[in-house]
């Protein structure tokens, strides 16, 4: 069964006549790495915001794991889809790096020792341990990106939706990210990556979708 089922979805921003997305029919499965490409301004980020309920379709419907997205709260959706924004500044709000990662994990209701363990695991993996007590917004862009990814990965959602995740990452950290995605896929989780990074897509994607004139083309 599809994890996300998109039926006849169209979207335009309020006050605008141009439809950014037109009659989209698409199924996204909890498997592999799906890459979404398309020109700047083609609607990739808009599409991702529809999937996590930040925007509502003007036509059509989206189902997440068999339930209508419109019947779920943002928190309920957030537990099933981990979303990493294009700009990590929009996502980071805690006083320290450690707290930023712990915030979501704690809200899952895990016992404190499990929270601590999970935070340490992702901080180690993304080489953020030296910044554990640093203020997130004082980090470099690449470090902020790694932190935003780590905070979402720590939640272990069924599907990860990553908007331009390699921007600001150096080649070494890009490889760390890719290897992590491979591990997630091996653990039967799905990943959707919006990206212009052709080399990253070529290396890690198992399915390619290109957004053009408001519609998806499967490649």
């Amino acid at each position, binding site marked *: 069964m599809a994890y996300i089922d998109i039926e006849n979805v169209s979207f335009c*921003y309020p006050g605008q006549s141009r439809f950014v997305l037109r009659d989209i029919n698409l199924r996204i499965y909890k498997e592999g790495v799906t890459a979404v490409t*398309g*020109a*700047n*301004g*083609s609607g*990739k*980020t808009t599409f991702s915001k529809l999937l996590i309920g930040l925007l509502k379709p003007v036509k059509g419907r989206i189902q997440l794991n068999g339930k209508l997205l419109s019947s779920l709260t943002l928190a309920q959706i957030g537990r099933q889809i981990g979303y990493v924004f*294009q*700009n990590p*500044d929009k996502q980071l709000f805690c006083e320290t790096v450690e707290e930023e990662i712990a915030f979501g994990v704690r809200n899952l209701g895990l016992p404190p020792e499990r929270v601590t363990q999970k935070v340490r695991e992702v901080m180690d993996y993304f080489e953020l341990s030296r910044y554990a007590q*640093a*203020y997130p917004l*004082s*980090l*470099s*862009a*690449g*470090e902020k*990106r*790694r932190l935003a990814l780590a905070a979402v990965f720590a939640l272990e959602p069924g599907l990860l939706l990553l908007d*331009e995740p*390699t*921007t*600001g*990452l*150096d*080649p*070494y*950290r*890009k*490889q760390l990210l*890719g290897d992590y995605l491979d591990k997630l896929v091996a653990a039967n989780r799905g990943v959707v990556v919006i990206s*212009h*990074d*052709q*080399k*990253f897509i070529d*290396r890690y994607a198992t399915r390619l979708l290109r957004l053009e004139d408001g519609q998806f083309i499967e490649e």
Partner: protein
Amino acid sequence: MDAIVVDRLSYRYQAVGREILKNISFKVAPGEIVALVGLSGCGKSTLCMCLGGIIPHYLGGMLDGQVLINGKDTKEYRVAQLALEVGLVFQDPDTQLFAPTVEDEIAFAPENLCLPVEEVATRVDNVLDTLGITSLRKTNPNHLSGGQKHLVAMGAVLALEPSILVLDEVIAQLDPVGKRIINEILVDLRRRGKTILIVEHDPEAVSIADRMLVLEEGRLIKDGETATVLEWWEFMLRHKYGCDNWTISGHATGPE
């Protein structure tokens, strides 16, 4: 006279104990394209802000050494004065865009130079056309995609026609068409004698540079001709960091 002189530059932010830049020295001649690479957090953006005078004027901190932009010591000139010499395009365009429309954004700086209205209009039209964003001229920058915002931020700086351009990871979020346009612009600017410093991680983006600098934990560890340093950097990434996803992909848009 060199366009950029960085002489024994060290810097630490007020809130951060450790030194971010450590005794860095290099010069850039007029008309040179120089690429600056290094792992995240090594000090690339901090160095860019030193070149634009944002450090030390806005961010304070402890700066030792000297940065000269066309002979002007950044400590002695205001950021607004330096902006006429060096155009800095930030890593995050949201920190740069504020006007209600794209054309207002691009016109803002030339208008503030008190240029004649016709000259401002010509510059705006030229920049919009060169960047291929004329259709966005009446759009609110906040409604643009990430890549489009980068192009507008770039346009706002190009409209000032500075002699030095500093681009902090501007190309990464652009689609292939946007990347090609920026590459063409940079090659054309070099032809017209402009000096350009680009910070990027992508080997294709840096391959247009004449020279390449590598920063590691705040120190300048390599400075040389691009092809040689690219090869060395690729070797380092592969053998020191176990990274096999970074390969030199030729010099399709390289120096003429």
